[in-house]
């Protein structure tokens, strides 16, 4: 940073300056970049079809044909892990987008307008919090045929109450601040107040929440696939673990390795989330 002497920094630059001094967060970022790179270019570089039977079933790691061993059908585990990332990350990311979209919309409307809109929407979030998330998602996927889209939609549908509550709380707080009152007194339209005045100031905690939501959605997708509810045509980390579950004691590697990658991915996202929290909300720093 050479521009530090030239007056105050932009908030973004300041946040990045804090973030990059956070070792765990940088580690998380590096880990995530590595994993994303693996899923994007890995399949072309490694070139083994994850669905091809390459060798004897349940071969331990260290084999010339299959470095990480094979699964119960004799498929290459490394190829499965490399290709499985696409489905896991794609579903996790789109489910998180849906969760945040729904949650922020509901929370913003409830917090800004108050009154009966608020009561109605809060009742709805209460209702969705009563239903156990995984069991609700299982029901939806069972009734509407498993596919990547069904899984993403069902995850979004069960996860939105948390960001909705957060957004509502932020809107309730900010809408009473002086600059918003002033804008209102000057006759600003509601849409402008919501989009241009309140939302940007509610952004820091929402960005942190969005990061955590991505991690939670990836975990959720893993759980659903593990139970056999994912898209059975798309290899994913959870699916590999679920299919090899009956052979845990014969082949520890077939469930452990995909689990490590899943864990590492969510860990990386959590570390980034913690780092963003410190960088964007310096006053709320966790003790």
């Amino acid at each position, binding site marked *: 940073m050479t521009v530090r002497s030239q007056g105050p920094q932009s908030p973004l630059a300041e946040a990045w300056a804090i973030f990059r001094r956070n070792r765990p967060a940088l580690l998380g970022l590096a880990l995530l970049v590595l994993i994303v790179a693996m899923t994007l270019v890995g399949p072309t570089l490694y070139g083994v079809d994850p669905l091809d039977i390459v060798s004897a079933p349940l071969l331990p790691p260290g084999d010339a044909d299959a470095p990480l061993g094979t699964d119960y059908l004799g498929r290459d585990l490394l190829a499965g892990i490399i290709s499985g990332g696409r489905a896991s990350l794609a579903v996790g990311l789109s489910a998180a987008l849906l969760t945040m979209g729904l949650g922020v919309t509901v929370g913003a409307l409830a917090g800004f307008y108050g009154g009966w809109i608020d009561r109605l929407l809060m009742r709805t979030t209460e209702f969705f919090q*009563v*239903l156990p*998330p995984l069991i609700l998602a299982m029901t939806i996927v069972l009734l509407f045929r498993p596919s990547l889209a069904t899984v993403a939609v069902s995850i979004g549908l069960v996860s939105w109450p948390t960001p909705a509550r957060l957004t509502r709380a932020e809107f309730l707080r900010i809408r009473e601040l002086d600059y918003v009152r002033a804008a209102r007194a000057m006759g600003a339209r509601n849409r402008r107040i919501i989009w241009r005045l309140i939302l940007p100031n509610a952004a820091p905690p929402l960005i942190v929440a969005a990061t955590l939501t991505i991690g939670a959605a990836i975990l959720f997708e893993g759980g659903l696939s593990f139970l056999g509810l994912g898209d059975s045509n798309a290899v994913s980390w959870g699916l590999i673990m679920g299919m090899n579950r009956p052979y845990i004691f014969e082949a520890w590697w077939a469930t452990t390795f995909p689990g490590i990658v899943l864990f590492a991915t*969510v860990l990386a996202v959590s570390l980034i989330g913690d780092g963003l929290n410190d960088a964007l909300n310096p006053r709320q720093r966790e003790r």
Partner: protein
Amino acid sequence: MRGGSVLGQLVSACGLLFAVVLFNFVVLHLAPGDVAETLTSATGGATKEILDQVRHLYGLDQPLHVQFLAYLSRLLHGDLGTSAYFNAPVAGLILDRLFPTALLVGTALVLAIVLGAMLGIVAARRPGGIVNSLVSVLSLVGYSAPVFWTGILVLLAFASWLPLFPAQGMVDPRLSGGPIARVIDVLHHLVLPAVTLASVYLAQYSRLARTSMLDALGADYIRTARAKGLGEHTVVYKHALRNAILPIVTVAGVQVSHLLAGAVLVETVFGWPGMGRLAYESILRRDAPLMLGILFCTALLVIVVNMATDLLYRAIDPRIRTQ
């Protein structure tokens, strides 16, 4: 649901339950394909007679509102429908699995709260200590580790490499002992799944306990307690702990639905014969009536537990009663 009179809460609980019933009904009818076929798909291609029988039983030729009222009235009579795969009433199937799930979830919850509170307290008292760092790492790992993966690692470690505990199920079918031996056998089976399920929440509760304990220890009444010469032990465990435990009770109450969801994965990994395992089985068989019944029953359970938490909260915190 917090606050308000007990009666008001009862009314809102009934409203929520009604919403759950309506939701079940709507989802079933929105699902692609014929409702009778969805309900019987677990039999693997039902004959025309069976389909007609189901259509007649559920009154599927009637208008929707009549169907809904009939559905509601069946539920009020404790009739959750018939499982197509097991060919038995759904209510009975679920009731059989209630105790194992309650035992597993209850044990995990108590374990997580007690251990979490203890870790949190120690961490709060020594902010620079090892336990404090441990709580930070634990909460990160507990949040990020998929619970089914943790379960598999626990199985590999303590049922295979160090065969200390049984790997699957709740009872040893070969066991022929008295009631005490049976209880010990169940507890022996309970250890691994309960520890696995608790691990996720232990992480959260220890972090929560640390934060609320730090807040409590900084409060005025603690300074007063110290000033009047009370021993450190009394100050920490009698004065601060009481106030620090409230947020944990609140969060634990709110999270019962998450615990039940986590139980699905843990019961599947450990072959624990609870409602979660039943949900997994109904997915395998594509048994829609059973799955909808489980969704209804778990929601009912969550509502009941939320109300119980609220009453408990009133008992712990006298400020709420006077509001």
